[in-house]
């Protein structure tokens, strides 16, 4: 079989894996803060954090180009001080995928933390646990199932990310050409046999993700 399909698959898994890892930390932190803390602008922050889920990927891609592009306000600083350029790199693809999939983790984590009875946390405090210990030994274990469900969805979403990734990372074979972009390119170029191979691989991977998600949640409950 075409080796470039496997390279695209490996790249897709790498990008989605990194994005999911980042989202696990970021989404969990944001979900916890919004579930437990009261502060002005909380609803606005929640809306802003959910925005990537409803905005068209092209809009996100454009925002990213404007921000982390070589002439963007953050991108120009990164380039001039650290020599880092994110556009057309797999790291850029990770940023796009992270952003797009973030709300899935954030929303799931927030709901999961809200379902944890605060009295249990208070009981732990009364018994002498510090805030970090309360989080890691009480809140997190009780919310974990819900967070995991969000994380798996986020992984699937990151794996299929297309629009923002194409705009930010381009389509460089072996470097930034993920499965979904490779499929698009093959169809555009009228290479149906390549497209068939890629579509088959993508479908198998997605079924595998769903099956393992189902198994994981069964094992947990």
């Amino acid at each position, binding site marked *: 079989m075409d080796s470039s399909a496997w390279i695209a698959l490996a790249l897709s898994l790498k990008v989605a894996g990194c994005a999911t890892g980042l989202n696990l930390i970021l989404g969990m932190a944001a979900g916890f803060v919004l579930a437990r803390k009261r502060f002005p602008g909380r609803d606005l922050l929640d809306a802003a954090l959910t925005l990537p889920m409803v905005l068209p990927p092209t809009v996100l891609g454009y925002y990213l180009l404007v921000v982390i592009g070589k002439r963007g306000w953050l991108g120009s600083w990164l380039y001039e001080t650290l020599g880092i350029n994110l556009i057309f790199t797999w790291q850029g693809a990770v940023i796009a995928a992270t952003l797009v999939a973030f709300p899935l983790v954030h929303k799931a984590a927030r709901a999961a933390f809200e379902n944890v009875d605060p009295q249990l946390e208070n009981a732990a405090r009364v018994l002498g646990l510090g805030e970090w210990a309360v989080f890691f030994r009480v809140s997190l274990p009780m919310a974990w199932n819900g967070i995991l469900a969000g994380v798996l969805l986020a992984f699937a979403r990151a794996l299929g990310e297309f629009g923002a990734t194409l705009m930010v990372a*381009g*389509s460089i074979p072996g470097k930034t050409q993920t499965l979904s972009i490779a499929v*698009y390119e093959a169809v555009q170029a*009228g290479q149906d046999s390549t497209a068939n191979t890629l579509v088959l691989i993508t479908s198998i991977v997605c079924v595998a993700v769903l099956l393992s998600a189902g198994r994981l949640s069964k094992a947990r409950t």
Partner: protein
Amino acid sequence: MKMLLSFALMAVSLGAQSADLTVSAAASLTNAFKALAPAFEARNPGTRVLLNFAASDALLAQIAKGAPVDVFASADQETLDRAQAQQLLVAGSRRDFAINALVLITPIDGAVQLATLADLRHPEVKRIALGKPEGVPAGRYAKGALEAAKLWQVVEPKAVYATNVRQALDYVARGEVEAGFVYATDAAVQKGRVKVAFSLPTAVPIRYPVALVAGGPNAEAARKFVDYLLSPAGQAVLAKYGFQKP
């Protein structure tokens, strides 16, 4: 993505009325055809021109899958040859209507001065935008020119592939790449943001062919559109956007 394509086809077919003329044109024709369409509509009251722009290969893929297109204007002969081989065109309707040139461009404030193709070896040139040769005529022309100059091996590791020539133009205009291959007419669209380093000789002249698509829903208007394209009035519009007469 197949689904995306079929949705696109559905949208095209649902939106098209009997008096609608659907023209699939190469991305490099965007500005010129957007100016041509209203002029044609003014001459043919009741006809509405629907324009569909993409890389020529993508347009061919749509037509091959049954998109209800009346006129197909490609940026190269090869794509229309392939359409002809698949018997997608009305026999004998093919005409050349414009000539273009391939140029190497840099961002307007680009630090690297490029005088010859060999300057692309320069380490300061980290990324070079060009259409994907497998799907974009401008990319094929560029690859051909680079292979002729024995520089493809130099450019390939630096290549950033675009899905159509206008995307390559955008990459250069944003300064995300140090150089890019586009048509002279594309560079003119972004005059304020890119500058032309030099134009390149291509093995085959860049002649744009147009043809009627077999089974197109509006054959009569399609014929009129191609006639208009080749008429002095149509050619004047194309010339305004930098295309030369065939």
